[in-house]
Structures are given as C-alpha cells and as structure tokens.
C-alpha cells in the first residue's frame, strides 16, 4: 500500500499525491466546485504529462470501476465456479415493510431464504458488509445476493414490492 500525501490548496481544493511503484506520480485534485482533476507526473518531472478533468458523477463512476465495485475481474479458475444464475438485487425498504427497524440478526434472512445482504444504502451513506447487529431502517436500499430461487424466496417471505433493478444506472 503506497502512502497518500494530502495537501490543502486554499481557494482551490484539496490535493492527493500517490507515489506509484513505477516511480511515476498520480496527483488528484478535488476542487471545491466538485470537479476532479487527475494528473500524471512521469518520474522526476515537475510538469504533468497528462491531465483529465472529471465532473462529480464521472469521478464516482470511475472510482467504482477502479475499486472493483462496478465490475470485478474474475480469474478463469474461479469463473467455472460462479453459477450462472447468481444475481444481485436492489431492494427498497418501504416504511411499513416487515424488514424495517429490525436487526439483520433478528431477521434470520440467510437461514430462511439463503440470501445475503451485502450492502445497505442509507441516503448518502453506504454501509458495505453490514454487521449482524445493524438495524435495517425504513427507506434504506438493500443490495442482496443469491441465486434466482433464493431471491424469489426472499421476495415472497418479506413481501417486497419495490425492486430497483432499473434504478441501477
């Protein structure tokens, strides 16, 4: 893990410098306006060799791609093991849902349906790998994983009406 240097640029924003193993440097400037700029400095140069400006949305998308949340490369060996019908589902918790205001532990989701909750999206915050003690709140969005049958199971058990598959974009 390389060290990230942080530095304030008063009136402009914040600067993050990543020293790469190759000797090159990657500098990311987050402007107060929300714009991001990614600069690449080739080893020992003090002028960037390339600049990419991104708006807030683009930056988040690229961030997701780089961190592997958007698409996870799988090695060939593992690919054989992944079942074709494993799906992720986005579930909105409505106010009067049977899921609302209960701990994940109490809901016994995995035991009864086989589905796992991988992420809870609560307004602006995202809770990846929520602990069993985490309480599901009304209006949360849950990202669940399971095969088709398990998902069906989940939907009927908890009487889910709102699937957000189309909101993923």
């Amino acid at each position, binding site marked *: 893990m390389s060290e990230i240097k942080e530095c304030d640029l*008063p*009136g402009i924003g914040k600067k993050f410098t990543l020293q790469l193993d190759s000797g090159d440097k990657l500098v990311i400037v987050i402007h107060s306006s929300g714009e991001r700029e990614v*600069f690449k400095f080739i080893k020992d140069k003090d002028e960037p060799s390339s600049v990419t400006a991104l708006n807030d949305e683009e930056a988040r998308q690229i961030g997701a791609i780089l961190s592997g949340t958007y698409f996870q490369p799988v090695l060939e060996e593992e690919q054989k093991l992944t079942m074709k019908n494993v799906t992720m589902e986005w579930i909105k918790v409505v106010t009067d849902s049977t899921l609302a205001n209960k701990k994940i532990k109490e809901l016994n989701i995995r035991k009864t349906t086989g589905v796992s909750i991988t992420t809870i999206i609560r307004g602006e915050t995202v809770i990846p790998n929520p602990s069993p003690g985490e309480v599901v709140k009304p209006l949360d969005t849950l990202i669940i994983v399971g095969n088709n049958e398990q998902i069906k199971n989940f939907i009927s058990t908890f009487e889910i009406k709102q699937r957000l598959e189309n909101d993923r974009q």
Partner: protein
Amino acid sequence: MIVNESVLSLGISLLALFCAGFLATKINQSLIAVFIVVGMILQNFFPVTIITEFIATLGVIFMLFMFGLEFSVGGLVQNQRKIFYTGIYDFLFNFPLGMLLGWLLGYDLVKSLLLGGIIYVTSSVIVAKSIIDLKRSANPETEHLLNILIFEDMFIAIFMAFIVGIINYGHIDAKNTFLVMLKTSAYFMFFIILARTSKKFIDRIIDIEHAELFVILILSIIVLSAGAASKIGLSEAIGAFLAGLLLSETKQRHRISEAIKPFQQFSTAIFFVVFGMSIDYKHVASLIPIGIFIFIVSSFSKVYGGYFIGKKYALSKKAGLRLGFSLIPRGEFSIILAGVITMNHALPYPLKSLTGVYVLLSAILGSILMKESDWFIKWFIERKDKQTDRNV
C-alpha cells in the same frame, strides 16, 4: 435628480462592462483590467456620483468579506510555518523595494508605504484563476504559490487597517502609530474572542430558513461590522474581513457565500469602474514610462523571489521560476490600497493613476507571462546549465 441620472448611467456602465468582459473572457484576459479600462473610457460620458462611489465602497466591503469567508483558518494554523517562511521571503523581496521606489519618486512615508503594499501584493483572483485555467493545480510549485498568496492577503488586510488608521490621523508619529496599532489589535481581539466563545450562539442566530430574512441578517452583520470599524477610525474593509472570518467557521458558510456573491460581483465591478473613472488621462501619458519601469523592476524581484523560495524548498529550477512568474499579476488589492487615498482628498493624485497604469500592465502582461513563461524558463535553464558545465 442625481438618482434618476445615476440609474441610466449605471445601466450604461453595466452594459459596457458586460460587452467588454465578454470579449475579455474570449481571449482569456482578467476582468479586473478590463473593468478599469471601461471606467477610463466612461469618464468621458458621465461623472462619478456619490451613488456610484457608495456602491464602490460596498464593493470593497463585500470583496473583503468574501475573502474572509473563504479564508481557511484551519489551513492557516496547519501550515503556519510554511506560510510564514515563504511569505516572509516574498515580503522581503518586494515590499521594501516598493517603498524604495516610492522614496525615489519623492513620496512621503505614508505614500511610500502604500506603494510598497501596491507593488508587493500579487492578485489572488488572477493567479487562482490562471492556476485552474492552465491546469497547474497539481504542480509542485502551486502549494507554495498559494501559501504566499495567503500570507500576502493576510498581511495586506492588517496593513490596510493600520494605514487607513494612520491616514485618518493625518500623519505618522510614534503616538499615532501606537494608538492605531492598539485599536487594530483591539478590534481583531474582539472578533477572535467572539469567534472562540460564541460559535454555537452565532450558529444558532444565523440559522434562518427564510431566504429573504437570511440575506438581510447577513448583510446587516457585514455592514455593521464595517461601519463600526470605520467609526473607530479603522478601514471599513477590515471590519468586513473580520466579519467574514467570523462567519467562515459556521455551518451556514456555503449558504452565506451563495447569498452574498451576487452583491459582491455587482459592487466590485462598479468599484473597478469608479477607480478607472478617476484615473486622469492627463497624468497617464507621463506616467507610462514610470509604470513600465516599476513593472520591470518589480517583476524581476517577484521572479527572483519565487526562484529563491523554490530553491529553499528544493523545487527544481523550472518550478521555482514558474513560481516567480506566477507572482507577477497585481490586481484587486493594489487597487484597493490605492483607493484608500482617493476617499481621502488630502493626498494628491499621481499615486492612484500610477497604480492604475501599473495594475493594467501587470494584470494584462502578468497573465500572459504566466502562460508563456515556459520558453524563457527553458532558455534560462539551458544557459545556466551550459555555464555550470563550463565551470566544471
């Protein structure tokens, strides 16, 4: 009568500002210089009225307020050593030079001090914009550049409080200096204590949802603070600056900035126009050679100062020179400093017209130099390298 005529002339001024500004942005020139030129032209058509002058005063107040509001006290404390050292070098290279030039021009001490400040202070507005436009925000010299700008602006804010106090007393002597310093520090202390002790209280007071009342409350805070400073013989600008600093720590900071910005943009534009209108053509022609001379000398000191600071902080020669070239544009604060004496009619004209010429030169040529300095830097470094080769 004055009011009716002012409305029309204000409308014409604004339209002229828009047209000129539109063209200026097409060729990437700074608006400050263009607004001053518009003012210089408009003086042939109508005079500065008490109303435009009042708007101009508000322009300075709002500008300083916004500057205080966007000022990062946290950043200042965090980087204080770096800011202090880079700032002091830049100060020593440029401020005394300005005073010396003032002395050579036969100015008295107050005006020499002012010229020192005018020549010393780089335009944060122009430089910050150029950094973004030229995609230099990630360059190694940029953080030092911004640190210098913070030091300069901070220094000028305090310097202005002091110099206006002195001008209000009429002349410098030990007693007046002491009194002014006492008042300035008392006013600063008042705001620092207020910020320290009543942060939550202030947060609660300004947490008003009603959009209109919110704007009115914020305006009242700004103008009251400016007025109070003026009442005790300091500059209005410093009062506004401290009000901005006080509100910069609140949760509403962003909302305040959004609400006040249009007022600031409008009144600051008028401020530059009024400044341009008060530049006397008769003086300008004879001032151009002096202006060019001062521009060359002070650009040299800025570039050398930047190079020196770059060396201190182990930047490459190239980055150091780029730092120096980036410090050339002068703008808003130089004009404000020169404007300090327009409102006080006891002091004569030329310094103001000279500043006008000087700022026009350095704002226009400065932003061009900032962009086009690369070939010079390359040439300079190659030449230097050859020299060292020969010496070896």
